[in-house]
């Protein structure tokens, strides 16, 4: 029984060690600002088109579905409030994080995995560089900075998509939709909607780096690391969103 538990416990312990070292390195020299900006460009600017597209269509679909449901209670004009709460609290952060996990946790894992199997990580250590400082910490900082920004953009575009549907198919005025959507939001919702992407970002970056840094077995190993990074990061996003929602709604 203990033998079965040993590998996952050891893996989790390794993950915690990597996380602590990566976070500690934020406050230790040397810093690599060029790498941080490069990763912000890759993760942030690179993900922007797909995040905007998904944000738009999630707002569109939500508005159509919710309007249909609310119509039964004669509350169709309240659709802006429902869409706003759902997007800001949950859908915006989770959808954006899942997209970034699919795009960037995999990218990080495959890049670092390739470096590991071609001994570039060992070379880095041999040549006087801490690979966690050079590779993991910049990706962590960059993801933690850009994911909340991407989420804000996705929320905004989603609400705009909802406004478009409300105006063109539900005969609601855009100003009414916007005002109800905005007024319903409380401080608690905004905090929740920003804390979630921040925590997701930490998970996405660290999980991607963790699987990349422990890649073994050549190109097949790189493929395995990539798949594992996406699956584990996505699962953790849903687990963490449940936990944060529980804390905010039932505190």
């Amino acid at each position: 029984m203990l033998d079965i538990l040993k590998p996952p416990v050891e893996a989790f312990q390794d993950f915690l060690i990597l996380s602590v070292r990566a976070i500690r390195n934020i406050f230790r020299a040397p810093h690599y600002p060029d790498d941080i900006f490069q990763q912000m460009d890759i993760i942030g600017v690179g993900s922007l088109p797909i995040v905007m597209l998904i944000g738009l269509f999630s707002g569109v679909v939500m508005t159509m579905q919710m309007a249909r449901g609310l119509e039964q209670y004669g509350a169709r004009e309240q659709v802006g409030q429902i869409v706003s709460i759902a997007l800001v609290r949950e859908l915006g952060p989770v959808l954006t994080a899942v997209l970034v996990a699919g795009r960037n946790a995999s990218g990080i894992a495959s890049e670092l995995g390739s470096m590991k199997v071609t001994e570039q990580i060992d070379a880095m250590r041999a040549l006087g560089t801490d690979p966690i400082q050079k590779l993991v910490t910049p990706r962590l900082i960059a993801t933690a900075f850009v994911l909340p920004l991407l989420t804000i953009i996705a929320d905004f575009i989603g609400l705009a998509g909802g406004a478009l549907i409300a105006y063109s198919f539900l005969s609601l005025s855009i100003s009414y939709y916007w005002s109800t959507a905005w007024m319903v939001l409380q401080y608690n919702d905004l905090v929740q909607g920003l804390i979630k992407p921040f925590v997701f970002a930490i998970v996405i970056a660290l999980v991607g780096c963790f699987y990349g840094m422990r890649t073994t077995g050549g190109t097949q190993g790189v493929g395995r690391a990539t798949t594992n990074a996406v699956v584990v990061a996505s699962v953790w996003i849903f687990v963490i969103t449940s936990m944060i929602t529980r804390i905010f709604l039932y505190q």
Partner: protein
Amino acid sequence: MTPDSPRVEQVLRFDDVTVDFGGTLALDHVSFELGPGETRILFGAAGSGKSTLLKTALGLIRPSSGRVFLFGADITDLREHDLFDIRARVGILFQEGGLFDSLTVAENVAYPLLNQRALRQAIQPNGAGQRTVDQRVREALHFVELDQTLEKYPSELSGGMRRRAGIARAVVTEPALMLYDSPTAGLDPITANTIIALILKEREMLNTAALLVTHRYLDGHLISNFRYNPSSGAVERISRPAEDGGRVTTKFFVMKEGRILFQGSERELQAASDPYVQKFLRHGSA
């Protein structure tokens, strides 16, 4: 310093070192010493622990038991950041090359000069006649005859050229110890001999101690019996080999399942009766 501490002139010493990868012994009670200017050739089948031995010597892998001394310092329990200054005195050529894909050849070769703390301080422009990073990179690439590749990326180079660029990156710091992990693996015989000639040249010019992992007996034979002549620029047979009374600076190790099965001179290797040891002579007779 305790009575058992190694002599200062020792470059590398393994003292009963074992490396255990989750129940599999990659190194099994390995002990040996390496002095300045000496060379050790390591033979062994795949998975016999040769690469692990090199990485343990550099502190990239920590031993499960035993002690490793590098330049007289016990590196067994040193923290990663404390190892950096000692590693600055060691050059390593990885089996897979280990060149950074995202950097040009010149940037790769400059990397240790710009990133190793001890070297970074040494090349500050605070003394007359100090060679700049750029000069040292050009010299190192000239040494391996890759002057024309400064701005190329590793992916644009052939296998042999990548290996030479790896040697340039290793020697640019003028290390006291060189670790070569299968420098001729996967290369055609002509290119492989070119790489060995570069290793001889490096040994002659800098009097560097070296550990060289290889599958080819010919590599060991050449290193044991030939030298680079700086005045003629050619490789020539050593006039007074060890067997004739010269100092034995090149020894051979044969590794099997993490253990050093044989260690001795080339003549002793040729006389060894162990069938496993004999395999390496049969498959690559000089």
